[in-house]
């Protein structure tokens, strides 16, 4: 499990490797907040290599989205597999986030 952070122009791309769960969600949160603090405002979190997100992981995404919006920025998500999409739909978080099929599509139009 880990996170790869890349810069794509003005957009900060975070690739989640493995699960996003209670044991590592704080690390993701800190990575994003550090960059928000230094002025980054556009974020994409990509889940192409993620099989599972637990409720703590969902919670940290909600928290980050709120903090980024408060700073005038935007958080988008990308590459959710079928199971992850199910979790987002069940919790209605698919209505809260802009979700793209791929990170390339998420980066477009930012």
């Amino acid at each position, binding site marked *: 499990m880990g996170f790869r952070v890349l810069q794509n122009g003005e957009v900060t791309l975070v690739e989640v490797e493995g*699960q996003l*769960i*209670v*044991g590592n969600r704080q690390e993701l949160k800190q990575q994003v907040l550090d960059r928000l603090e230094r002025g980054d405002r556009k974020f994409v979190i990509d889940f192409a290599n993620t099989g*599972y997100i*637990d*409720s*703590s992981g*969902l*919670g*940290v995404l*909600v*928290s980050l*989205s*709120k903090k980024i919006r408060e700073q005038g920025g935007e958080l988008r998500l990308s590459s959710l597999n079928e*199971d992850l999409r*199910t*979790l987002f739909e*069940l*919790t*209605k*978080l698919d*209505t*809260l986030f802009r979700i793209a099929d791929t990170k390339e599509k998420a980066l477009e139009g930012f």
Partner: protein
Amino acid sequence: MNRDLVLELPTDVRTIEHAVEYVIGRCPCCAEEARRLDLNFRVGLTEALSNAMLYGNSRDPSKRVLVEIAFLDECIQARVTDQGDGFDPASVPDPTTPENLTKPCGRGLFLMRKLLDEVKYNAQGNQVTLVLKLDSGGMLEGGVQA
């Protein structure tokens, strides 16, 4: 409750993933149930363990979580017991309402209820029994249908 597997876990969230994989790996389910096992049961059990450790045991490393698993013909049962004082599951609000949607907490129990066929707490609220019904008519090794 029949017990095919019994695990006693420390209150350490880092043990959850491995424990859930261990249980799923020992489930003699047929291929037709694989997705429900891999999503519904995995999520339900993970959330129950997480709640037991974070809220039930209040992250106290001196407390333990007991996990009892039964593989039955018609269902899989998982019972998770923590050493806390318990809580009232009816007091947990719906996280999907507009006023709660942007809150970071409250989705664990909701997901358990959505994905599992039964979620029953004992009177004290420190023990939950999860049931995943098997629709395929039974569990046989090698994916052979009964």
